[in-house]
């Protein structure tokens, strides 16, 4: 491209980008920079008379094994939840994009996100009512199969169910947006050449919709890694994760510097994982 147009492009790009990124800078990046600064202090500047710059908060991550252990536990949870969302959500997006037509599709599209206009805490407590012993699942199953009692509450499974529920719409909608854009004539051509569905799925559908699927997966993996509300209420005594440790520093002890350091370590690890995954996604295209 010629030099002149690229300068004009840069200007146009700047005009389109500036409002969003200026907004993010004032409301998120600068506040987080303050937190980043705190994470290198010995104490929060509000409370203690003597604070100095130190790297000890980051060193503490390595000296107490509970931090890396629970970070691993949280990343595993995020991976499980993301995988479950993809396996459940992608086929649903496929049906929505390729099999449903007309107004019904519009309506379904809206229905999928509507549950998330309700309060998340109310949803979590509703899940508790469904999952607990003597709860709805237990009653229903008990009516069909007497002598069978199910109590999923306060378990790892309950945490996964609650989180999958909270994040499923992301992967359904982003996959849908990508799948729906695929030209039907390509698929028809493949079918008329006798390609089995498996081939169409792995050679055409998945590669062509991978960007959408990946966007949804990222929007799930990233926040789940730092979640603490669903784990604590649905997981009971099994609901101890990395997010809980961060929360403790802000709620139980007044140790923002450590809490901030733990958060930024989480952010760094998540970014490294995403960076490592991106070439795989590129190659798959």
């Amino acid at each position, binding site marked *: 491209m010629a030099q002149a147009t690229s300068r004009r492009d840069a200007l146009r790009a700047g005009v389109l980008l500036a409002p969003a990124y200026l907004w993010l800078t004032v409301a998120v990046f600068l506040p987080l920079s303050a937190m980043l600064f705190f994470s290198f202090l010995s104490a929060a500047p*509000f409370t203690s008379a003597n604070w100095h710059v130190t790297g000890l908060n980051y060193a503490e991550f390595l000296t107490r094994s509970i931090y890396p252990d629970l970070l691993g536990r949280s990343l595993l949870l995020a991976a499980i939840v993301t995988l479950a969302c993809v396996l459940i959500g992608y086929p649903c997006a496929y049906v929505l994009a390729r099999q449903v037509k007309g107004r019904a599709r519009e309506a379904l599209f809206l229905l999928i996100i509507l549950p998330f206009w309700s309060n998340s805490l109310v949803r979590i407590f509703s899940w508790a009512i469904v999952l607990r012993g003597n709860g709805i699942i237990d009653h229903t199953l008990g009516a069909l199969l007497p002598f069978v009692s199910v109590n999923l509450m*306060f378990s790892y499974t309950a945490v996964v169910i609650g989180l999958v529920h909270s994040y499923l719409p992301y992967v359904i909608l982003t996959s849908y947006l990508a799948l729906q854009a695929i030209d039907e004539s390509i698929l028809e051509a493949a079918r008329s050449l006798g390609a089995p569905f498996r081939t169409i799925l792995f050679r055409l559908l998945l590669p062509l919709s991978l960007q959408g699927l990946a966007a949804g997966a990222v929007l799930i993996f990233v926040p789940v890694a730092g979640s603490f509300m669903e784990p604590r209420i649905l997981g*009971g*005594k099994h609901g101890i994760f990395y997010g809980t440790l961060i929360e403790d520093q802000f709620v139980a*002890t007044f140790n923002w510097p450590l809490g901030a350091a733990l958060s930024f370590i989480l952010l760094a690890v998540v970014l490294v994982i995403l960076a490592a995954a991106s070439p795989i996604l590129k190659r798959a295209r």
Partner: protein
Amino acid sequence: MNRINRRVLLGAMSAAVLAGSAGLAMAAGEIRVLNWQGYGTDEAFATEAFEKKTGVKVVHDYFTSEQEMLTKLRTNPGAYDVVLINSAFTGQAKAEGLIAKIDTSDMPNVKDLAPSMGQNPDLVPGGDVYGVAWTWGATALAVNKDKVTPLPTSLALLWDPQYAGKVSIRDDGVEAIQFAALALGQDMNDIKDLEAVKAKLKALMPQIKTFWSSENDWNQFFSAGDFTVSTFWSGGAGRSITKGLPVAFVVPQEGAVGWLDSLAIPATSKNQDAARAFINWMIDPEFYVQWAAKGAPSSANAKANAALPDSDFNKQAFADPAVVARVHFMKPLSDETRKAYTELWQDVKTAQ
């Protein structure tokens, strides 16, 4: 160097706040109260009566943990006129210059405070009042009285294998450690053998069904039968009984964790006269008797407690002076101790 920097920083910060909070400037006839939600000061009947009497409107802001209360005081100078502070945190708030000395000479109800509460050294350091004792209570055992007979007398109940998987405690490191210390016969405000406490808590883990962290959790989990034996706040137990749950509240022989809540006035309050009038109203027997009917903790005002009907939950629970004597009031903790306790609790929870 650091000290000076900090001064400059704080100075710049307060200048910024003065500029920024111009929009917040409030009517003289309004006080702002910072408290837990649904904790007495925001009872509609009370604020309406106060407004009728004084013409001063009461506006509320809430916190969900003591640390957050301190943060809100630090970052919102001038925004609040009355704040609820647990006596274990009064010293820290005073040391940071967040709260003002209270002149109680025009607060007639203060003289009726029980001396052990009103003159609590954490609230009245060196004779200066930094918090007016308001309510107190104990965190002790609350059990399902239909399923636990006879009623227990000992904290050992939490460790009783008969109730394995039916036990709950609050997800709070400091409180968990204090209960384990009491069960071991240690002084909960001066724990000598922290290793023994840790071992005791580890032994408790298999008993536990879940932790609770709010009254909402407690009531829902209890009424669904998730646990039958738990720690609970006296005020909360009173409310649960009023609402018809089969709860019995027991202060065990080893003792219980006591807390004393006070009302304080932020140093930056611009409406301290109205704040004092409001606090005086909050310890008034007339207010307290109405509040207690809806489920309140014990009042620090001896006259207010005396005015309660004999059927009142707190009056019954703490009728026996020997029971009251078993309540150990929480002392302030240093940051280091708090950190050590939190880490111990995290270790115990993670290791199970």
